[in-house]
């Protein structure tokens, strides 16, 4: 996989992964300093999933996300100012501050949006895929979700629908071993999410979600399948969240040995060791520094940005009719 990618592509992947890590690290800091209120679900540790999938999306593709959406938004190149602005609830936010961290969305970039209800995005992505098929296009839709989502009726109904109508949708599970404090060892009776698609006639793979190249390869295959009229598929990316369920979670449920193991699998370290000889450590370091500057600027701008006007409370409830 790596050999087939040119240097620009590799650097693009690295830049996005590094940008997500720097951004989420800052989110953790502002949460700890109580500079912003509300629930902040960070993505650190899972960068290889967003960056393996999202850069393969075309402009006419769609995807749905969850409350843990910052990484998806960054991988889709939504400007950091707009994401940080949303987290602060400022007018500069990508949704004008209406939705906050859990609801980052930019439909102009195919990001239908972050959703607060577990499994809420799967049927919606499936519907976007149905539209693509109906309109005779070869665009695809992706639904990102966590391991905990498989218990929802919405999860099963979406898979069933997608398969019945052969929708060009790719279900991407970010299996980070926990749904809040509850370990997959307890809740995931099938042993894996990929094992759950068989009865729905949906092909699935379980892959190393800390390896951006493995994610990219699986995604390319799934997109090819969807774009050529061969229906839905599911990717289960095994990953780990380095933060809590949300910022402030004390995480007493994570054994230190497990944390240490997954820290050793850090997708950024893995990328470095896979590409350092070809790209050079200095190049990778320089990108890390430049994204840090971007992140600093985005948060400074968000902090300084104005609040929305109070009249905004009742706007956007309905679509204005011309």
């Amino acid at each position, binding site marked *: 996989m790596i050999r087939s990618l040119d240097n620009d592509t590799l650097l693009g992947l690295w830049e996005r992964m590094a940008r997500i890590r720097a951004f989420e690290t800052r989110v953790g800091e502002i949460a700890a300093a109580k500079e912003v209120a509300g629930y902040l679900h960070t993505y650190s540790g899972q960068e290889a999933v967003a960056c393996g999938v999202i850069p393969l999306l075309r402009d006419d593709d769609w995807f749905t996300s969850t409350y843990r959406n910052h990484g998806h938004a960054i991988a889709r190149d939504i400007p950091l100012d707009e994401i940080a602005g949303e987290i602060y609830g400022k007018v500069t936010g990508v949704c004008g501050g209406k939705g906050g961290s859990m609801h980052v969305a930019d439909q102009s970039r195919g990001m239908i949006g972050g959703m607060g209800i577990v499994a809420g995005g799967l049927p919606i992505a499936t519907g976007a895929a149905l539209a693509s098929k109906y309109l005779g296009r070869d665009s695809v839709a992706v639904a990102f979700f966590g391991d905990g989502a498989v*218990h929802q009726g919405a999860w099963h109904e979406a898979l069933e629908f997608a398969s019945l109508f052969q929708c060009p949708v790719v279900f991407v599970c970010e299996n980070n071993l926990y749904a809040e*404090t509850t370990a997959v060892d307890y809740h995931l009776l099938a042993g894996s999410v990929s094992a759950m698609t068989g009865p729905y006639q949906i092909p699935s793979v379980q892959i190393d979600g800390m390896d951006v190249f493995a994610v990219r390869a699986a995604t390319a295959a799934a997109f090819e399948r969807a774009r050529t009229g061969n229906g839905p598929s599911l990717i289960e990316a095994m990953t780990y969240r380095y933060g809590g369920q949300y910022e402030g979670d004390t995480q007493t449920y994570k054994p230190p040995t497990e944390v240490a193991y997954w820290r050793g699998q850090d997708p950024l370290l893995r990328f470095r060791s896979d590409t350092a000889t070809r790209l050079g450590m200095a190049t990778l370091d320089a990108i890390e520094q430049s994204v840090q500057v971007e992140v600093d600027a985005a948060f400074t701008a968000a902090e300084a940005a104005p609040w929305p006007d109070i009249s905004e409370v009742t706007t956007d409830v309905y679509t204005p009719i011309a």
Partner: protein
Amino acid sequence: MTRTLNVKDAINEALRQEMAADNRVILMGEDIAGGAGRDADYPPAADAWGGPFGVTQGLLPLFGRERVIDTAIAETGFVGAAIGAAIAGLRPVVEIMYVDFIGTSFDQLLNHAAKLRYVYGGKVSVPIVVRTVAGAGFRAAAEHSQTLYSLYTHVPGLKVVAPATAADAKGLLISAIRDPDPVIFIEHKRLYMEDDEVPEEPYAIPFGVARIVRSGRDVTIVGVQKMVHTAVEAATLLSRDGIEAEVIDPRTYSPLDSETILQSVEKTGRLVVVDESHPRCSLATDIAALAADAAFHSLRGPIKMVTGAHAPVPFSPPLEDAYIPDAARIVAAVRDQLDKKAR
């Protein structure tokens, strides 16, 4: 003996006492203890959360995983299972982590818990309690900030309880657990840390009995859950200008103590209802309609409703603050009424 306890600990105590007294009482919900699947190998994982607000923490060590059941994220499954277990003799108390999530399991409440007794000709009861967390003011945005009181109150067969104080929370939860019918017990996330004097021993506060929080002769203010406190704040401000408000906390919305509300309106001739929910088809409209219907001739001015907006709860802090009724808005509503009378 009473002592100071906050709402969170009062609820915990009610659960603890009822579980100790009656082994038919079981708890089910997501991460209501926490650490499931890890605690066998890594004991510190056990009871990691006690729910997102720590309300049920400490119950796992006392009662074990047989009775403090961490479920998967499958609300339809465990709400439905609670209904079946209740019919078969248990007293399940389930937690819907945020009231907003009820959408995923509403069918079990709407079409089953609420209706089985009726459609089966009174031959069966469904003694479940659904504890859930409501309310704005937590910067939690539109899908984690709703109240939805009226959604439940609308449905015959469900009982709806929304305590504003720790003492009420304990006594009403004990009643809910002992009640033979499905009870939706709504906890407000911004009230968990509010202290009150709470009796140590178990006690039950009957449903359908409002609490007169403050008496007054000039205007009746009915507050819904957290808004009871905001109404008291407003009453204190009004009192400085010689306006004495009577503040009523209905405490339960199904059944509703209409008598206490009507008696007060008959006395004061004025009614303001404060509900942080959306205004349409809300508890505010319900209580206003009650007074318009049954106390019209006592009214000396139009009934006023102080509510949230007909909009989802916004995330942005100043927008959310503007969304939630505050004391100033209640004071303005009262003044508006008094002015109308002067004319």
